[in-house]
């Protein structure tokens, strides 16, 4: 029965992780992550290091440190360049990655995807002007909502669909233009991709126009209302969030890299949530989403999946097994950088019935606790994306933009995870006694 369930779960996980669209999205976001983190750090530095006008803490407000404000333009420019063009970059990278999977590495693939996406964007912007009662319409511009994280879902879907259509047309070879043999290969290739590119862009653009005519709303609005908002509601709501991370831990305990398998499902939404918080804080408003990409790193996967820092501490405190103690000591250094493969595969936790329950339970409890502490206002919202390898406590301080409440909450989460693992470490002591008796 156990093997049957394991096999079924593995089959599902295998299908999910090898699904080409999921692979393309996962790889594209892996390439984008440094850009997102750079942007988030630039906002952090602009506000916490260089700002002389912020109401919160800032290094530049200290006596003799006002010169730091000279760097504000630099960080603001980097923030603008990175986070304001996230959707444009996502469209290009998803198209490249999907093209790679489909054996189409032509330069035209991302260009077709980007053109298709832009054909669905508004090219006007309504803005209010001081002294005028009615808003003014500016034409021939690409509004920010289509280039930053807000347009991410439309961008992702368009990139996938456009690339698929383009590849299908090219592979069918029905629109190939026969050239004489004297024509160089690169010239004939340019002609061969001409019709597929034009047809793909026209099909996407035509569908957008048809949709607007029939339903009276743009695809951007429709995807925002029907996909983006409900998905965000599920994943940034506590039940959906806990379910997905419990499932990730279930994958881990049967020996699968749960984070890698489920990342494509939640990554885009969670990144969008943390970026929305970053933008709100940068605009001087209150952050909106408690659960986001930074919250995952700080309270759900700190020291690795299953919050194994608690297990390391519990073993060092209470274990009588020398083999466990040796592995725990070995795992302290990588654990500080949130790497716990030495524990999951070394102890092991994988396929170990003793540690399965606390491994799944610990992140659920710490995430719920941190969520509650944020709701009551003790813990600051997670507003900046930070590298997941940042050590515990420092990561809480950075991601929250300097909230000591977040640091204390993360410290309490470590204590909670230790308490969750402790009874099972005591149980493991009993198993060594039984082994000695049986010998």
């Amino acid at each position, binding site marked *: 029965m156990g*093997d*049957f369930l*394991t*096999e079924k779960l*593995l*089959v599902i*996980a*295998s299908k999910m*992780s090898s699904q080409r669209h999921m*692979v393309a999205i996962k*790889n*594209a976001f*892996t*390439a*984008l*992550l*440094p*850009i997102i983190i*750079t942007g988030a750090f*630039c906002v952090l530095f602009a506000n916490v290091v260089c700002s002389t006008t912020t109401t919160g803490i800032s290094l530049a407000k200290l006596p003799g440190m006002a010169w730091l404000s000279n760097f504000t*333009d*630099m960080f*603001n*420019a*980097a923030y*603008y*360049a*990175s986070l304001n*063009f996230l959707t*444009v*970059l996502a469209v*290009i*990278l998803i198209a*490249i*990655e999907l093209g*790679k*999977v489909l054996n189409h590495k032509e330069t035209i693939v*991302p260009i077709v995807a980007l053109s298709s996406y832009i054909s669905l964007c508004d090219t006007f912007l309504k803005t209010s002007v001081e002294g005028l009662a009615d808003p003014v319409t500016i034409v021939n511009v690409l509004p920010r909502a289509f280039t930053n994280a807000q347009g991410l879902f439309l961008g992702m879907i368009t990139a996938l669909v456009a690339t698929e259509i383009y590849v299908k047309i090219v592979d069918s070879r029905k629109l190939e233009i026969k050239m004489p043999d004297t024509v160089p290969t690169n010239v004939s290739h340019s002609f061969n991709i001409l019709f597929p590119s034009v047809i793909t862009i026209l099909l996407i653009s035509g569908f957008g126009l048809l949709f607007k005519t029939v339903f009276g709303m743009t695809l951007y609005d429709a995807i925002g209302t029907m996909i983006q908002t409900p998905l965000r509601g599920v994943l940034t709501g506590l039940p959906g969030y806990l379910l997905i991370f419990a499932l990730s831990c279930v994958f881990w305990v049967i*020996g*699968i*890299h749960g984070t890698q*398998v489920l990342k494509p499902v939640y990554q885009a939404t969670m990144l969008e949530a943390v970026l929305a918080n970053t933008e709100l804080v940068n605009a001087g408003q209150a952050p909106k989403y408690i659960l986001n990409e930074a919250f995952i790193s700080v309270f759900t996967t700190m020291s690795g999946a299953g919050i194994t820092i608690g297990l390391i501490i519990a073993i060092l405190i209470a274990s009588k097994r020398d083999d466990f103690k040796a592995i725990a000591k070995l795992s302290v250094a990588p654990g500080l950088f949130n790497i716990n493969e030495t524990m999951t595969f070394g102890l092991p936790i994988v396929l170990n019935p003793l540690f399965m329950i606390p491994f799944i339970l610990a992140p659920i409890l710490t995430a719920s606790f941190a969520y509650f502490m944020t709701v009551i206002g003790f813990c600051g919202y997670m507003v900046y994306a930070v*590298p997941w*390898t940042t050590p515990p406590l420092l990561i809480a301080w950075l991601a929250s933009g300097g909230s000591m409440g977040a640091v204390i909450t993360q410290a309490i989460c470590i204590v909670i995870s230790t308490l969750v693992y402790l009874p099972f470490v005591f149980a493991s002591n009993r198993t060594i006694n039984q082994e000695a008796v049986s010998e």
Partner: protein
Amino acid sequence: MNRSRKENIMDLKQQLNTPSQNSIKAFTRYKLATYVCNIVVPPYGLYRLWSRQSEFCLSEKIAQTFVVSVYVTTLIQSLI
């Protein structure tokens, strides 16, 4: 029957835990240094990005170059 299921489980596990050929490692030491250079000294960052020893794949090169280009343009615009 039971043996073939166990074999299937082992095969699936191996398949799932083997890193994909296309997977990207975004946080190597070389790449981290390049991200910092992109902001502090953009021309040198671009050199590191496109040099022969570069560890970046095409997707990363395109994305980083795009960001550096917009960053430099915005910075110059704000300074003038």
